[in-house]
């Protein structure tokens, strides 16, 4: 649900954005400023437990997550809660969804919350990912109308990762297999978008901690594929994806004898650049794999449109892939 003009979005940054994904937080607020988006941070929110708490203890994990929902629901006039971190988004929406589906679970969770003087009615707020807000509320047209520094000639691989539209706890807003919202967003910035086949594949998640070789192989595939598609940068929307692809890029190079140098940027950083916000305000410089070289590629003028290759006379016609429609 798109909040009315006056209604701010509830905002749940999550632990990552506090520190390791500081650049995500910084760029989000800088961009929100320009777009006039009001994000109201949930007061005294706590960690969502990532994918760890659920592995240990189910009810406490649900209670932990729902404390945030309860706080968000009781604070100010907002009916939506925006999470920029995909894992937070997933956890929040999962608990909301399952509480609604399984009344017995809801009552147990609420019993636990009651111990802290809180309660949460499932469904009372809509949990949304930050990308969803940009794609469906702000819209491509509005963004492209505000672009002052188009990202001409920058080849961007849009990388969605796993959790953003999978599974569809909060309803489907993009394909879980082949989403295109971020693609269009990047196109709106003037960038050249790579049709990145692995766009929803896994970044390794917590496997870096459990079995580094397994994780490095997962990361390698993504880097390799982006490299094969000639991507200058990979645009991400999840702190975990950014961390794994950025921080472990050197480990991959070391382990596989490769030499990848692909900066991993938050999509909000790229939007910020195109809107003319200064790089420093957008958290540039915090990435391990420096973006300097890639960004230097940004052209001044709109490149000539590529000529569509005419199919040969023998070639057979082909069905066109369908896409989710955006609001």
């Amino acid at each position, binding site marked *: 649900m798109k909040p009315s003009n006056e209604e701010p979005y509830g905002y749940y940054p999550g632990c990552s954005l506090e520190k390791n994904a500081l650049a995500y937080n910084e760029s989000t607020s800088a961009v929100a400023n320009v777009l006039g988006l009001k994000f109201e941070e949930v007061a005294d929110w706590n960690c969502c437990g990532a994918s760890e708490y659920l592995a240990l203890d189910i009810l406490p994990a649900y209670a932990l997550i729902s404390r945030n929902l309860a706080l968000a629901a009781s604070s100010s006039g907002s009916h939506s809660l925006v999470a920029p971190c995909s894992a937070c988004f997933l956890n929040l929406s999962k608990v909301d969804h399952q509480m609604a589906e399984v009344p017995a679970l809801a009552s147990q969770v609420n019993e636990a919350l009651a111990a802290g003087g809180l309660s949460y009615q499932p469904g009372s707020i809509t949990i949304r990912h930050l990308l969803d807000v940009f794609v469906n509320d702000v819209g491509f047209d509005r963004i492209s109308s505000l672009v002052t520094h188009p990202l001409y000639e920058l080849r961007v691989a849009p990388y969605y990762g796993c959790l953003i539209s999978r599974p569809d706890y909060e309803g489907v807003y993009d394909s879980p297999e082949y989403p295109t919202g971020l693609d269009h967003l990047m196109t709106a910035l003037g960038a050249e978008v790579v049709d990145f086949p692995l766009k929803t594949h896994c970044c390794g998640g917590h496997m870096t901690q459990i079995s580094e070789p397994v994780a490095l192989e997962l990361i390698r595939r993504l880097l390799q594929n982006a490299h094969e598609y000639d991507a200058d940068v990979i645009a991400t929307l999840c702190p975990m994806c950014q961390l794994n692809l950025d921080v472990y890029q050197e480990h991959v190079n070391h382990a596989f004898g490769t030499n990848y140098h692909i900066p991993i940027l938050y999509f909000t950083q790229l939007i910020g650049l195109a809107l003319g916000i200064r790089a420093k305000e957008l958290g540039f410089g915090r990435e391990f794999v420096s973006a300097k070289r890639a960004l230097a590629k940004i052209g001044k003028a709109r490149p000539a449109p590529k000529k569509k290759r005419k199919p040969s006379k023998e070639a*057979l016609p082909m069905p066109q892939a369908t896409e989710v429609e955006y609001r």
Partner: protein
Amino acid sequence: MKQERIGVYVCHCGSNIAGTVDVGQLSSWAADALEKRGVVVARDYKFMCSSLGQELIKSDIVELSLTRVVVAACSPHLHEKTFRTACQQAGLNPYLMEMVSLREHVAWVHSDKALATQKAKALISGAVERVALHEPLDPISVPIEATTLVVGAGISGIQAALEIADAGQKVVLVEREPSIGGHMAQLDKTFPTLDCSACILTPKMVTVGSHPNINLLTWSEVEAVDGFVGQFTVTIRKKARYVREDVCTGCGICMEKCPSKLIDQVYEAGLGYRSAIYRPFPQAIPKYPVIDKANCIYFQRGKCKACQLFCPTTPNAIDFEQEDQILQLTVGNIILATGYDLFDARRIPQYGYGRLANVFSSLEFERLCNAAGPTEGKILLRDGVSQPESVGIIHCVGSRDRNYNNYCSAICCMQSLKFAHLVKERTGAKVTNFYIDIRTPYKDYDEFYQHVLQEKVEFVRGRVAEVTDAARRPGEEGKLIIQVEDTFIGKQRRIPVDMVILSAGIEPRHDSKEVSRKFGISCNGSGFFTELHPKLDPVATMSKGIFIAGCAQGPKDIPASVVQGAAAAARVLGTIQQKSLDLEPVLAQVIDQKCSGCRICSNLCPFNAIGFDLERQISTINPALCQGCGTCVSACPSHAISGTQFSTEQILAQLHGLLAESFNGNGARTQSPAFSQAELV
């Protein structure tokens, strides 16, 4: 109110009933205890259904002026008709008779004689109360118009039309596309015998086109259906062809000359082109082309008329002024054979259809194989030049999957095996089939599977996870990689191939819900038409006079579609032979003065018998459509719907009698206050 004169007849059925129920006591009790209730005579007899037994009842009806009869014997499913006829012969309306099942529901299932007799009394008492409220009814007879409408001219509709026409009855065959033939006309070889589809279909199509008893209306659609069995009035739109059928010779020059070329999504399954004026395929019946207005340059921009210019006929066969025709016909029966749509594999993005060039749908592959298809039967990649060296065939695409269709499409295993064989035979490529289960029932099907196994086709049991062009390892570059868990070894495998064929499932026609509404039949949750009985009446529907056949009823192959077409025809011929049909007068009826127009009932009738009169703001029930289930009767909160033979009053009277007698021993049978003393204070 006039007191009815009721006769009660208790049957011994030899010792079948008399062995467990004290029949003598029962008849004297009935004569005695139920006298107040209107019983003037009660008799017991050895075999009521014998002619002597029936005579007994008949003479009583005449001599004692009986107005109602209760026969306490066997199940009404056995002898209701017998005793109704007996009543009728004695001049009593047959619906004024009520049966009590003493044999099946008492004697045969109980052993204690006292309890059984007590229960028998209760049942007879209920029947006596009930029968007093029965009303005389007459069966509704409807004449059957001999002409039959067949909708859809795929193989199933063609078969149905031919059976009826060959039996000497008239058929109106309505087909939406420019030609008859349906999906079968698109296929190359047909399993399991690998007959050439065109070779076996074309002769049938030709017969349809020239049959004196078949009125073939292609490029036409049924717009409305009114009336009921025997007397349907159908409105058909015959779309303008813009080609005069009386002049056109079918030479095809116009099609060659037409400058507007587009991808043929229907017949060529998107793999080939056609012009704006077109005939879907060379053997089309009828042979005349149609102009597809939406893509015709003249119709869209006012200039062109190339077809007219080059048309060799005089007068010119191209007529841009033609208009749609609306026909109204009366038909007695309708057969719906509207077929299926292929599942759109683009809905499963991970299989890459529409994104990765060399992923083909099953129908595309049929066109590739077909000698009349865009590659003249050569199995080529999308570039139209190279031959695949390795092919992956994926089963169950969109079938057996709760995210799409949760049923088995029945044909795609066999069709995938056929594909494997054809690829092997024509290209020698390495073929791998990916399946969950191989389903090959019916005659010679599994033999076909075994034959394909012999051809060294590889089978991997595992539902494919994804098809990708993102190479991960050497050897994968430039290929399509099929990623799958080989469930027999429990390991993930990546198998690089040149070509992927998706055996997409069969779906109900996209408009099947609308069509079912139009014809007043129902669909299952997926959208296939619902048959009257899944085993014993698979081609009839709950709407009398409307039959279904072929894939419109559910996924099936050609042999089964043909069988159903023939079966539907046989059912129709049966009713035509009878000339008229007697409908049971057990019906619901709206009592106009009581109806408040609340429309609770509007949606309840599965046979669409209930309508709403907007003018008078009350509901109406079409007696010819009502099947007498009584659901609406119970639902109407105003009790504004009466149900003959099962009215609320009759049922309550029966209950009353039943319970009163059940408690007779307790002496509790007085008109009681609303609340007992115990409840009150």
